[in-house]
């Protein structure tokens, strides 16, 4: 678990600098300390703004999804750490085109407090804000406490669908409604095989045996539902699909998008081996897969592991999912 870096203190700032110099037509830095990534070409006047925020170390999440038909701006903290309320307020300001701003992000304690605080800060500047939290990780709390679940890769669907709704001209209430509907339609579960190293900490986020895996582990190494011997790919995929299908009602005729996501180091080859089972299980219940995503969409740097996300669509969500979007990591056209 070696890293290519300079001073660990500079990891995030240098990453953001490189991102913006590589894709200047897409991303630019804003905010007092350059911890806000915003669209180089802002959304048109009167478009509802969409902001997100969170810790670094998850590229393309979060900053990577700033772009046309996606996020307008994003505040970014140190690796795995929330940005400050001030930085979030800067992101909200950068996203505002006069029609209000939706805060769309993952359910983590510090992020929520800071984003609420940021809302208070910009309230005095007459920017209306709303909030939708992603809480899609079924392994992090039982269904009765679904609101305590943490947000993981479901974010990708939420950014995409909500971004399209805003681009389509819905007002703040409408965009917020679509975002909440998407958040409610997403379920994710992950399995981790090896940790990653937070540059400033210099040591792995967790320890795990050479022949072990952990089902349901969080993207920062939060404990999962079981740890045990590494299982065959098909058995891992079957259990993950069991857990997802037990948590959301998907049946004959339903249309579903899926994301088979590498947590970082797991190669595409292995994602496709897993995808066979995802496809077979959804086919078995009679559901139709729409626009499947297989790749690295939400990572924890060099962590080894995988997550599955299901996003159950209705006509409205499917339309927005298929609408155009453009960023350096993903485009739909």
């Amino acid at each position, binding site marked *: 678990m070696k890293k290519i870096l300079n001073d660990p203190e500079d990891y995030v700032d240098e990453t953001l600098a490189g991102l913006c110099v590589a894709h200047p037509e897409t991303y630019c830095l804003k905010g007092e300390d350059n911890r806000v990534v915003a669209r180089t070409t802002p959304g048109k006047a009167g478009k509802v703004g969409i902001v997100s925020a969170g810790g670094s170390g998850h590229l393309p999440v979060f900053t990577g999804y700033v772009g046309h038909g996606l996020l307008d701006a994003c505040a970014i903290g140190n690796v795995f750490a929330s940005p400050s309320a001030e930085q979030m307020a800067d992101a909200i300001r950068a996203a505002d085109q006069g029609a209000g701003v939706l805060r769309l992000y993952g359910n983590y304690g510090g992020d929520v*407090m*800071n984003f609420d605080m940021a809302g208070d800060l910009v309230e005095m500047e007459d920017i209306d804000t709303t909030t939708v939290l992603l809480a899609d990780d079924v392994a992090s709390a039982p269904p009765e406490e679904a609101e305590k679940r943490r947000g993981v890769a479901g974010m990708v669907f939420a950014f995409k669908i909500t971004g399209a709704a805003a681009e389509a001209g819905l007002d703040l209430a409408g965009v917020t409604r679509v975002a909440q509907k998407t958040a409610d339609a997403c379920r994710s579960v992950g399995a981790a095989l090896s940790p990653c190293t937070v540059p400033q900490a210099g040591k792995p986020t967790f320890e795990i045996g050479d022949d072990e895996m952990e089902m349901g582990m969080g993207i920062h190494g939060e404990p999962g539902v079981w740890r045990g011997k590494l299982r065959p790919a098909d058995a891992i995929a079957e259990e993950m699909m069991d857990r997802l299908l037990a948590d959301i009602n998907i049946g004959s005729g339903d249309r579903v998008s899926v994301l088979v996501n590498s947590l970082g180091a797991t190669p595409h080859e292995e994602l496709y081996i897993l995808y066979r089972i995802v496809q077979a299980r959804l086919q078995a219940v009679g559901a139709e897969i729409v626009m499947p995503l297989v790749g690295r969409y939400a990572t924890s740097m060099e962590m080894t592991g995988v997550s599955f996300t299901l996003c159950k669509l209705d006509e409205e969500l499917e339309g927005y999912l298929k609408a155009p979007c453009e960023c350096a990591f993903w485009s739909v056209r």
Partner: protein
Amino acid sequence: MITVADLRAASLRLKDAMEAEADTLNSADGALGDGDLGITMRSGSRAVAEKAPDLPDDFGMALMGCAQAFMKVSSSSYGTLLATGLMAAARETKGRDAINAAELPDLLHAARDKMMARGKAELGGKTVLDSLDAIATALEGAKDPAAAAVAAAHDAQIAFRDKPATIGRARIFAEKSVGMDDPGMLAMTKIVQALTGR
């Protein structure tokens, strides 16, 4: 009477204490959490101490200045909660040069309530909220407010030690947390000691 001059002096004591306690607080937080509480308190208290000479003489505005300085450099929950509490107290004391020790319980309650709203947490959950609540209660009519506050913070920390954590990352390890101090309560004990100079 407590004036902005007192605030300035207290902020320097706080900074010194947090420089000294940063590792202790990091380890306490690192046992079940992300281990950043010492960093949070050190960088926050440094920022406040640095701003101290420039704080306005309006007590409320000075508290507001402390909150903003802290918030700017800290993004961990504890820093955001402290800033929230400071801002609540700032709102209550705006336009005045000084406050009485007798007002402290009310100000602490105001802070506590805003912090509860911000963190969506209840009393009794083994958090910094319980420390503040205990301190406020102990200050009611106390003859030696400083001594009462220090004792109350410490006693609360000990009293909750054997309860399970209910918030944040430590909640997931609720069983393990029994017998361990809540890092935020531990920090509050150190903060009160530093602020009062006891």
